[in-house]
């Protein structure tokens, strides 16, 4: 006989789980009692939202499924934002929540909330377990669902009596879950693949538009191989950054609202858009009717519901990015140069680089550029959300997939810092840097307690402008500078960090930035760098919401250009 809690821990171990981020509470006491001498490491966070973001960061950096644990009611409800974050970005996470005993379900019992009802729209699937004998199967199904097809979060709600009840040991063979309604399709249809190849070979001005799906299916090598064979420039979404190195000659950087001018021009002029692992999000396409107006569209995605949702493709291919790219690569005979097109794209790149003013003042872009120079090929970059995120996306030099960790679809402020803890445990040998704003950092700043307790050596760079910068930027550009509730008072993050026992420094001059970053990098533990940047710096280029992406506001920078 075994208890439900024992079955849970065994099930997690069977799935290869070695770390859980969690927060205890009344109804999960039986689970915590099992964890006390289990071979699974548990990281005690300071808020359940941080537990799920950390599990999510772990998943993004490692490619494995992240796991978090929370108690019923408020604990479970605090996971909701994190589930929605993981759901929007298709990140494999299994969230385990405690629940009141089955006899009290629906009774408005203490710390009861209907978490399976609440999270239905933000999970790929969820379970309310009512019998411990189902638990082993459910754990296997949950990990299977989270980590296959279009990945996503799965929640398992465990009433306290299910955890304590003793049931016969049903430890059968490690069989595959049998789910009649869940059979993700990995292999693309051969006819469609041939049609895609035909279009590729006919194209005069082809562009690859690649997203998070390429990272998720580990298809970056195949993507770059196809781009090189076809001499086809590559633009990526925010989620796709890293699938081609920033310095690669065919890389156009990010497209869309804060994309590069040359990426948006190339999309607009292209005659073939090779879209893979993307979903034609409004932040990417701007006015959808004017997006890639001359192009035939090939759309490859593992989720059939994404195809035709926002833009009708000429060639739809349902399948896994890696599998489809490999099939296409086999059919592309030799190199297919497009000299005129390549020249045109090169001209755009030369004439419209990313820019910022270099007047000796402390500009946030300079901080990121300096960080990129100091790190070289090392490091994993985690961002918060807002201006800090866009500047990092634009100015950091990514060299590989899973090097860039950021909340894309949901745009969750407060994601980055807690996620960085998970990133560290996924890649303990890599330096992990968080690029934050003073607004975002304060959304989950309590996790300084966690990084201090476990000496998690993440380095937080706060681009401190005492504004909710991105909203302020919109107010400046579209609301006549009426800065309605976007100014924040000065906070001394150095002092806050030190109160937690964490090393920290404040930087006020551009000339001190590099040395400060090197000091942070060399420090063996966590570190907070409060960088007082130009307060009213804007993110450019910018496509106003709903406008054509070729109509960008480019700002008035004159001096410093990207190399």
């Amino acid at each position, binding site marked *: 006989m075994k208890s439900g809690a024992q079955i849970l821990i065994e099930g997690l171990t069977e799935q290869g789980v070695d770390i859980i981020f969690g927060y205890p509470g009344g109804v999960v006491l039986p689970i915590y009692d099992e964890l006390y001498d289990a071979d699974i490491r548990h990281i005690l966070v300071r808020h359940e939202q941080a537990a799920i973001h950390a599990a999510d960061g772990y998943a993004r950096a490692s490619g494995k499924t992240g796991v978090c644990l929370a108690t019923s009611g408020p604990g479970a409800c605090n996971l909701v934002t994190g589930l929605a974050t993981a759901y929007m970005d298709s990140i494999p996470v299994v969230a385990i929540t405690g629940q009141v005993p089955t006899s009290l379900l629906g009774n408005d019992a203490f710390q009861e909330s209907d978490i*399976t*009802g609440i999270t*239905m*729209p933000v999970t*790929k*699937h969820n379970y*309310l377990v009512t019998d411990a004998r189902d638990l082993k199967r459910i754990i296997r199904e949950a990990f299977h*669902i989270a980590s296959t097809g279009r990945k996503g979060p799965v929640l398992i709600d465990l009433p306290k009596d299910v955890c304590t009840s003793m049931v016969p040991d049903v430890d059968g063979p490690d069989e595959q879950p049998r*789910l*009649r*309604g*869940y059979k993700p399709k990995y292999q693309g249809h051969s006819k469609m693949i041939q049609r895609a190849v035909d279009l590729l070979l006919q194209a005069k001005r082809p562009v690859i538009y690649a997203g998070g799906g390429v990272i998720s299916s580990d298809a970056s090598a195949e993507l770059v191989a196809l781009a090189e064979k076809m001499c086809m420039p590559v633009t990526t979404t925010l989620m796709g950054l890293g699938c081609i190195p920033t310095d690669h000659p065919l890389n156009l950087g990010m497209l869309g609202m804060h994309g590069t001018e040359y990426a948006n021009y190339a999309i607009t002029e292209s005659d073939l858009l090779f879209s893979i692992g993307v979903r034609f999000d409004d932040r990417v396409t701007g006015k959808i009717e004017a997006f890639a107006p001359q192009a035939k569209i090939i759309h490859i995605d593992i*989720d*059939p*519901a994404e195809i*035709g*949702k926002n833009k009708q493709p000429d060639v739809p291919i349902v399948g896994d990015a890696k599998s489809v790219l490999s099939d296409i690569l086999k059919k592309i005979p030799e190199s297919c140069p497009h000299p005129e097109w390549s020249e045109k794209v090169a001209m755009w790149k030369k004439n419209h680089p990313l820019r910022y003013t270099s007047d000796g003042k402390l500009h946030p872009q300079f901080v990121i550029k300096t960080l990129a120079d100091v790190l070289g090929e090392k490091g994993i970059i985690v961002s918060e959300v807002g201006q800090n995120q866009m500047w990092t996306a634009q100015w950091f030099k990514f060299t590989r997939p899973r090097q860039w960790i950021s909340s894309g679809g949901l745009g969750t402020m407060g994601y980055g810092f807690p996620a960085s803890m998970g990133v560290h445990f996924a890649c303990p040998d890599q330096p992990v840097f968080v690029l934050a704003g003073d607004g975002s950092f304060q959304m989950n700043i309590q996790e300084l307690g966690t990084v201090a307790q476990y000496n998690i050596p993440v380095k937080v760079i706060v681009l401190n402008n005492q504004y909710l910068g991105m909203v302020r930027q919109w107010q400046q550009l579209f609301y006549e500078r009426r800065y309605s509730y976007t100014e924040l008072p000065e906070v001394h993050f150095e002092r806050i960090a030190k109160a937690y026992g964490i090393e920290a420094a404040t930087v006020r001059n551009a000339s001190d930035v590099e040395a400060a970053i090197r000091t942070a990098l060399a420090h063996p533990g966590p570190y907070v760098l409060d960088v007082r940047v130009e307060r009213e710096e804007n993110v450019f280029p910018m496509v106003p919401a709903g406008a054509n992406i070729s109509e960008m506001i480019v700002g008035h920078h004159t001096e410093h250009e990207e190399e």
Partner: protein
Amino acid sequence: MTAHIFSVLVEDSPGVLSRVTGLFSRRGFNIESLAVGHCEQPDTSRITIVVTGNDVQIEQVKKQLNKLIEVIKVLDISESEHVERELALMKVRAGPGEARSEVMQIAGIFRAKIIDVGSDTLVVEVTGDSGKIAAIEDLLKPYGVLELVRTGKIALQRGSATVSSGR
């Protein structure tokens, strides 16, 4: 904008109906009618949903339904030859005398059944397509329809095709 009839085979598990209906409201689709019950296969239920929308919306509904883990099969039955029925019960004011016999005559014409007789009322059971039910409702209205309840549309493809065979 046309009405489509989806026949959806689902795992017979708690919560599956709210997953399906939640999806509709969340994505802004309106359910016109819905009928659910066990079907010919064990541990499986069939939900019949009537939804109105343009082609893009209908395609999206179908794909989103298919994404639900507990949804086994989705078929738009209205795309092929099919038969459809609804059942309605109507409580009609019809005291002893002329009204009662007229209501019974109308019921007879529609091959409806009288399944309850009260001192002042009759309960009429009618089966048919939506048009037939609307027609008898119109004819009975002048007598006073005190209550009306209907099942929502159910439908099957004609011939040997079935939803589980995927045709």
